[in-house]
């Protein structure tokens, strides 16, 4: 049985948005194919003749797609311009980088916001950052109402999941004055724009950060602060990544 939405029909704008989205996606796929071999043909034009039933309720013109057995449908024709190899190269965004996060991957983001972002061509976090740098008001461009604060947090969380921290070792050294605890690994300190991170607690004692890079983090402390029994070391690398380990004397 047809869904409520299918029975209610769609507006021409919503249909055209989805049609252009389909063709944009086809263009992205062709751009990726074009990286490995030159495309011989490109789409010069595309036309659709649709069998539809229009319905005007006094405010909005909506269409329903003709269903099997229904007769007397109106014919609506659409003609869309071309996608050429040259256009693909010139106008299509570069294929997504490995470290980029697609909007689809951002968990907990309202599906309506995802769809509206995709329809205005924002399909990845780097697109979103580009728009932000260009000072584009996405809501005015047709996106759903967006809470940028929570969106940024959701994006950072998704990004962090993609580049999860890995610890490969921990060592203690002495520079003559203080004891240096170094944690090494991958994707450790990544919040250079947040000076309050990383932060660490050895037991209940906050540690001073000496240096922090993605490959290692060094903390310094007085020798007297070294625990004489197994003690929990908790390191907040950024708001989305916390490492917990036991330091055993």
């Amino acid at each position, binding site marked *: 049985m047809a869904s409520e939405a299918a029975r209610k029909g769609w507006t021409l704008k919503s249909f055209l948005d989805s049609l252009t989205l*389909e063709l944009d996606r086809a263009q992205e796929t062709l751009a990726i194919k074009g990286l490995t071999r030159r495309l011989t043909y490109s789409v010069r034009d595309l036309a659709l003749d649709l069998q539809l039933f229009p319905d005007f309720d006094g405010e909005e013109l909506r269409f329903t797609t003709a269903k099997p057995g229904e007769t007397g449908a109106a014919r609506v024709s659409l003609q869309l311009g071309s996608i050429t*190899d040259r256009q693909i190269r010139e106008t299509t965004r570069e294929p997504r980088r490995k470290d980029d996060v697609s909007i689809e991957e951002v968990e907990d983001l309202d599906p309506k916001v995802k769809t509206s972002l995709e329809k205005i061509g924002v399909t990845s976090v780097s697109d979103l950052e580009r728009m932000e740098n260009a000072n584009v008001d996405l809501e005015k461009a047709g996106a759903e109402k967006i809470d940028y604060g929570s969106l940024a947090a959701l994006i950072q969380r998704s990004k962090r999941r993609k580049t999860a921290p890995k610890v490969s070792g921990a060592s203690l050294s002495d520079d003559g004055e203080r004891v240096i605890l170094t944690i090494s690994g991958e994707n450790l300190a990544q919040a250079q724009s947040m000076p309050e991170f990383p932060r660490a607690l050895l037991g209940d004692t906050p540690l001073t950060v000496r240096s922090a890079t993605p490959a290692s983090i060094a903390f310094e402390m007085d020798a007297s602060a070294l625990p004489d029994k197994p003690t929990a070391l908790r390191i907040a690398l950024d708001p989305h990544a916390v490492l917990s380990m036991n330091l055993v004397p």
Partner: protein
Amino acid sequence: MPEIGQEGAAVGRELDEFRLPLLRDVVVAMVDVDRVGDDLMEFHVEELTFDLPVELDPWYEGDVVSSLGASPPTQIVATTVMPVFHRLRVTLAEEGIDGGL
């Protein structure tokens, strides 16, 4: 989808779950054509037009169309009630030959 009786409800649900492939995949498959003949003196295909009946399956999110499913006819045997066939025309042009815009 036509209205169906109570005994057809289960079948109706199954049919509702059947989705056509996305239009983007159909278009990409159409463009994926290799040029025949390497010798520039040979005749070769400069333009290709697909003009075919298609079934359409709008995917909804709320009351807006989020994606478009499309497929060449899934049924070619004539029955009393046939699927509705819309029409899709796609013209492919050889790259570099008065391509598109």
